[in-house]
Every structure is written in C-alpha cells, then in structure tokens.
C-alpha cells in the first residue's frame, strides 16, 4: 500500500493503510481487534491485515493527531479504544476524494479500447 497521491493545502492525505483505518473508525470508535475484523468484513475479506501493520499505523495516526485513544472497559475487559479527531476527519475527506480521482484515472486507463469492447460483445 503506497500513497493516495492527493496533495492538499497544508498537508498530504495519509497513506492508504491509514486512510482505511480512518474510514473504519469514522463509523464508530473501536478497539484494535474490532478494527481488524471490521476492516475484513467491510472489504469482503480482501483486507485481512495483520496486527504487525495495524497497531503501528494506529499509533502513527495517534501521534500525528488523526485519532485519539483511551482505555475503556468493554464487555468486562480493558481495551484501548480509538476515535477519529477533527483533523483525522479532514484528512479522510481529502484522502477519499484523492482516492476517487485515482480510481477513476486507473479505470479509464485500464478500460478496453472501443474496438475490442465491441468485438467482445459480438
């Protein structure tokens, strides 16, 4: 996972892993394990990330003020719950629009030329 390639005023949108984590956390505050399972479910099993990449990315987001965390008791167990900050929401918005532009550009490049597409239809 590299970068979204979205430049905006005052900073760059986070790399894709961080963007995905923000996308999960913006729905609701979650702890680490729930973030990983939620990401797996939302992506239909495509993003089955390991803890070794998710926790450092969460800590990076926290250090740069995109998310904040606090210990809380969930179902009788102490867990560190992460929530998106205002800065994180702004970054997510920027990253989302950048990602959409990238996806559209890739789709346009990878689309079959009209002659081949019509040959396939026939």
């Amino acid at each position: 996972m590299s970068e979204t390639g979205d430049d905006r005023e005052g900073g760059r949108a986070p790399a894709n892993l961080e963007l995905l984590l923000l996308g999960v956390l913006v729905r609701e505050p979650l702890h680490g394990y729930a973030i990983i399972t939620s990401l797996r479910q939302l992506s239909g099993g495509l993003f089955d990330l390991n803890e070794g990449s998710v926790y450092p990315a969460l800590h990076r987001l926290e250090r740069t003020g995109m998310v904040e965390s606090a210990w809380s008791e969930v179902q009788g167990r102490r867990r560190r719950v992460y929530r998106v900050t205002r800065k994180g929401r702004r970054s997510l918005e920027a990253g989302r629009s950048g990602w959409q532009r990238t996806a559209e550009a890739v789709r346009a490049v990878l689309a079959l030329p009209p002659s081949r597409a019509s040959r396939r239809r026939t």
Partner: protein
Amino acid sequence: MTVREWMARFDGALAAAPARRRVLCEELAAHFADALAAGESEVAVTASAGAPEHVALECSREACLLAVERAVWLLLAGLLALGFLWRLGMVLYPLGQWVAPPRVLYPPHHVGLAAWAATGAAGAAAVLALRSWRLSGHHQAVALAATLVLVAAFALHLVAGNLYVWLRNDIVAGSPSAGAQAALSGAHLLVAALAAAPLVRAARRLRRISPRPRPGPG
C-alpha cells in the same frame, strides 16, 4: 507459538520507555484475549500477528518518535523556565544592591540569547515536522537531526549565558558573590539537564532501532 511466548519475545525486542512499554504490552495482550475469545487458536493468532521482533520494531519506532516529540516540548518548557528564572533572578537577587543597572547585552550574552531564541525556533520547527504527514517518511531523520540541533543550541545557551554572568559579576558592582553565583549556575545547569535528558534518551533509543545506511559499492 503460544501467546505467552509471542509476548515475551515482543517485550524483549521492544525499545520504549517503561510507561509506553506497559501500554503497548497491555494493548496487544487485550488484542490476543479478544482473538482467543472469538474462538481463534493460539497458534493462529500468533501466526497472524507476524514475527514479534518485527512488530516490536514498528511499535518501537512510533513510541520513540512520540517520546522525542514530548521531549522537545519539555525542552521548550525548560527553556522558557530558564529565561523566566534568569530574569526573575536579575530583578530579585540584588534587592536594590546594583550600583548601575546591569546591561543585558554584554558579550557573550548576546550569543546565549541568540542560542536561546534559536533553540526555541528549532524546537517549534521540530514539533511541526514530526506531526507532518508530508514528512512522515523522514520523521526518524528529522527527530535525530532536531535532537542534535536542540541539544547543541541548548548547550551553547548554557555556556554563553553562564560565562556572561561570571564575566559581568567582575565588572558590575553589587553582583552576587562567587559562592552565590556558583549555586545559581548549578541550579541553571540542573534545570537544563532535567529538560534535555529525556530528549537525549529518546533519541538514543531511536538511533538504536534506526537502520544504518549501507556503505556504497567501492
């Protein structure tokens, strides 16, 4: 590998301050407890977590950068405290003993003041750089460079500042006695050491886990 073995190897490979180490270990232990409660086997959860040394390295990097950032704030607070205490001392200590009011800009004190201002500016720049996404790939280099600059400027401030005071005392009537001045300088150095030590410690940890540049061919 069992969770206990994984955690022991993770703990052994982690380079972080004790408080941060506790938080990281507790967070990962909670994660494993959740996974086991969801019905996953110990072997599966530890395998999916990856090598404990690799996870520890990634977590250490973030913990060290966080520690450097906090230490820069502490150093800036120390800098402000030194400036405030120095001004307060200049006003309060003599209790009207000055024959002539002391001039602030005797050499080499202007060097100390410049170092004081440079340390503040460099510290603020370091904090901004460490929080910037644009520079996220270079945060380690920024943190290590900022530590060198800040500690050097801080040391310059201390040397020039104290040298100035000792020189000034020889030429301004009503100045503190040598003993009193030694005590003030000692306090000055103590505050500075307390403010700079966490930054040096965090930077040493960060340096230990940073990959060393490979020598080029030939």
